[in-house]
């Protein structure tokens, strides 16, 4: 399978006042197109930091990140925003839906950045909601939905513009077992049947079981290799 994400010698340093904290140390990682990767590790090990770099929300201090042949670490803020809109779907632990908008309108948000007409936006959002099993909740506000349902709306929002890959930061971290299973089943379905590449940070080994492979991050270094594509070059 083709490599989608190539991370080469990436370091991330945060400066807190005069103190410099190196959160990621020379990380190397390849993620294949169509993979479902779980990223585990203790709190503070840099999982979110790495995920944000892959999702183009932040830039590395050192090293290169190439996604689909494009050096995203070299993109400026504006270009990066466009790139995210075209390539990445984001799913967060706390759903991050806009509270004033209905499920339908939340899902339509990414489509506002496209050239689609209002009718097409409505239709695409309706299809995405149907895919996550919430067609009947389209007009509900987030507060009128359970956590699991909100996360499924968030998934619909993440996939509605048909991005190349999804990044999920502890998508089940705030859910009960059953809702978590529903969400994980949905991600698995998107990976298997729709070929979406998924990179998921999780603390939960049972969540990681849904992935094709699991990597461990410890103090900013990838430490272990499961089956699938290699780590470390």
């Amino acid at each position, binding site marked *: 399978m083709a490599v989608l994400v190539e991370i080469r010698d990436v370091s991330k340093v945060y400066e807190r006042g005069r103190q410099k904290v190196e959160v990621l140390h020379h990380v190397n990682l390849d993620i294949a197109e169509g993979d479902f990767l779980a990223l585990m590790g203790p709190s503070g090990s840099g999982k979110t930091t790495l995920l*944000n770099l892959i999702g183009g*929300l932040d830039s590395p201090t050192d090293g290169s990140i190439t996604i689909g042949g494009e050096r995203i670490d070299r993109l400026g*803020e504006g270009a990066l*925003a*466009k790139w995210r*809109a075209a390539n990445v779907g*984001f799913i967060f632990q706390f759903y991050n839906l806009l509270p004033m*908008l209905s499920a339908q*309108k939340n899902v339509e948000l990414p489509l506002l*950045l496209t050239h689609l007409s209002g009718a097409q936006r409505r239709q695409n959002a309706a299809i995405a909601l149907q895919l996550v099993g919430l067609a009947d909740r389209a007009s509900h506000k987030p507060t009128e939905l359970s956590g699991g349902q909100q996360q499924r709306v968030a998934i619909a929002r993440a996939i509605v513009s048909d991005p190349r890959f999804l990044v999920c930061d502890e998508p089940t971290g705030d859910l009960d077992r059953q809702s978590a299973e529903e969400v994980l089943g949905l991600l698995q379905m998107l990976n298997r049947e729709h070929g979406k590449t998924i990179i998921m940070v999780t603390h939960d080994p049972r969540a990681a079981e849904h992935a094709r492979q699991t990597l461990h991050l410890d103090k900013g270094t990838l430490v272990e290799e499961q089956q699938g594509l290699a780590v470390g070059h």
Partner: protein
Amino acid sequence: MKYLHLVIAALTRRKARTAFTLVSIIAAFLLFGLLNAVRVAFSGGSDTLAGNERLVVASRFSIMTGLPQSLQARIAAIPGVKAVGHQNWFGGVYQDPKNFVLSFAVDENYLDTNPDIVLTPEQRKAFAETRDGALVGKALAERYGWKVGQKVPLISQIFPRKDGDMTWPFTIVGIYDVTPDAPNGADQMFFLHWKYFDEGNQYGQHEVGWYVVQLSDPADADRVAQAIDALSANSDHETKTQTANAFNASFAKQLGNIGLIVTAIVGAVFFTLILLTGNTMAQAVRERIPELAVLKTIGFSNRSVLGLVLAEAVLMLLVGGILGMLLATAVVPALGKGSGGMIQLPQLGIRDWIEGLVLMILIGVVVGVLPALRGMRLRIVDALAGR
């Protein structure tokens, strides 16, 4: 436009807060509308003479200074003058000081110089034949239920009678109508005889307040005005001839520099409004930082985020401002009625609306720009992590 629902969603997020802010904006622009009307009402002074068929001749020094009655015949003799009448301010109230009556002592010629009032020959005759007779406007008569033939006492705020009494008895001899395009308040006036006033009042100096001149040809205004003022040049009663509008404006200016006062009040009101709505906007955006971070995550550009927040502020100002000015439009005529014609404000014109709209947008941008910049500059990863 496709982002409009996001702007509205942001505004309806905290309904009570938005409502409170809207009320302050409405109040500010209501005041803006009213005070602007006041300013316009008091600033007719820039009218040019030409094209006006009515001129007013008053003392050069002060509106409250009278002019000799002998001037009337000399003005009438100037070619181009069709009629000359005169008026004195009577300053009457009916029964109670708050029942102000726009009352003037006039001569019979005056009636020919006022194009707004409509009189029948019978009414004119009755006025001419009744020493204490009064002609009153229809609206004024309705207001106090006055009938023709009724004896009505007015209390002058300025002029005592020979015996020191301030109360002057009158007999209503006619209730006049006004032409359809007469200005507000023309139907609220009270006209009494100058002779009755001059002979009855303690200060009686055979002086008139000012002359009103009707021209044969409006194009003559400049020439006639110069000829009139030349009559009294270098005398102790030099005159200043101006248009009726300019005269009314200078009359009101006796009350002080209205324009400056109005500007100061409006300035203070808007300053307060900017502080208040600026604070509200800052708070509203602070609460929504995580949401704005989500929009940026999804790929909304910095400029879109900036635009969304600015649009929110401007929309709020526009909604409140337009409501406020509409309210002013409704209040202006009511104010004229309620004050018995004392306060005559012109209706808000296209200039007031343009000025108002520009102010709304300007204030919207001013109060929105700092929060908008803050929203635009937020670092996504920090905002998402709640840092």
